[in-house]
């Protein structure tokens, strides 16, 4: 487990045609263009000209969360992080509202993550950097949820 302050750099170290999207059912060697709806993918545009800190900043929340859980483990015992992770996972597996209809209500998640009394940019720009252009369609979302 990690007690990190600075997130790891998750710059892509190896790419293939399916690293940035799922493979199409009809052409398993290529990314599914119809599903993403963005047109043919150019790998060079996803790999070149990235800010040197981008890989680390995109990991910030997750790293801080892991550090916090690790300190709880050391101070209060393994039960603390296990219980917290379990509660989050219960919510994620029982909540479903398609993002076409607005996505699931973040009420339970906000309470658990202690975000219910604050409003930040993440509440306005809900998906982060790469969202907004292509909302995931209902079928692929449900497939992901159910695990097909």
């Amino acid at each position: 487990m990690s007690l990190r302050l600075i997130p790891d750099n998750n710059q892509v170290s190896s790419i293939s045609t399916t690293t940035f999207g799922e493979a199409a059912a009809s052409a398993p060697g290529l990314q599914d263009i119809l599903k993403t709806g963005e047109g043919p993918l150019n790998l060079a545009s996803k790999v070149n000209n990235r800010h040197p800190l981008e890989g680390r900043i995109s990991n910030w929340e997750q790293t801080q969360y892991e550090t916090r859980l690790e300190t709880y483990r050391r101070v209060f015992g393994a039960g603390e992080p296990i219980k917290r992770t379990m509660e989050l996972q219960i919510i994620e597996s029982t909540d479903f509202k398609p993002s076409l209809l607005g996505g699931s209500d973040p009420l339970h998640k906000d309470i658990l993550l202690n975000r219910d009394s604050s409003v930040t940019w993440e509440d306005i720009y809900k998906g982060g950097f790469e969202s907004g252009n292509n909302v995931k369609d209902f079928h692929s979302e449900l497939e992901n949820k159910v695990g097909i």
Partner: protein
Amino acid sequence: MNSIASQFTNNNNNIIRNEINSVTHEFAQQNSLNLVPSITLPPISQPTDFLRAHTDDETNPDCKIKIAHGTTTLAFRYQGGIIVAVDSRATAGNWIASQTVNKVIRINPFLLGTMAGGAADCQYWETWLGTQCRLHELREKERISVAAASKILGNLVYQYKGMGLSMGTMVCGYTKKEGPTIYYVDSDGTRLKGDLFCVGSGQTFAYGVLDSEYKWELTDEEALYLGKRSILAATHRDAYSGGSINLYHVTEKGWIYHGNHNVGDIFWDIKEQEKSFNNVDG
């Protein structure tokens, strides 16, 4: 629940052990056969320029890795199917790497792909195209159309656009619903359907002969001779083409190989037979 609990046990505590395990896990995973190859990238700001700096002959003549380039390939449609003719010389920078390269890739018994530009790129990706075509056949229970095969190749090449792939290839095939079809696919992502294409450093010389003699009503022998004569003209004037000529004829029953003709020998035969190439002393 077990997976959550195991995340927080003492076993996962050792950072160094986790790192070693993840690296060996990565190496172990690479033994599996993937449908697409993965390319490792250097961790710099412009990873795709790294390889180009070391292999691009035009921008840096001192580069250490010289890619095999230079060729003449042609394909044309006529009433009896498709004729594909290629030369067989490979040059790397300023020297001739080989005089006996096979520049036609047999994707499947009904599809041929020609190779111009970087030899490795064409060979690898056209063989990969062959696997995709076979998977298509197994899935759809019918042979893949030439349009679909060239589309797969074109989309793949577009994904790698700007990363230094160099290939100009023609996908030629005969299917029942399309008839004889030729698609030209480029490493820039161009994909064009046409009747007649010459690709490579010697393409202009081949176009000269081909354009002047081509008509749809050619007989099979005339068409084969025309393909051979066009490549001969290109090998005569282009320094990067030569070696020998490989001829293929694609019919509705599949492709037929029509032999390997050494340029050095047939040049004199054709010169005598046609009374052409008069500037060369016999």
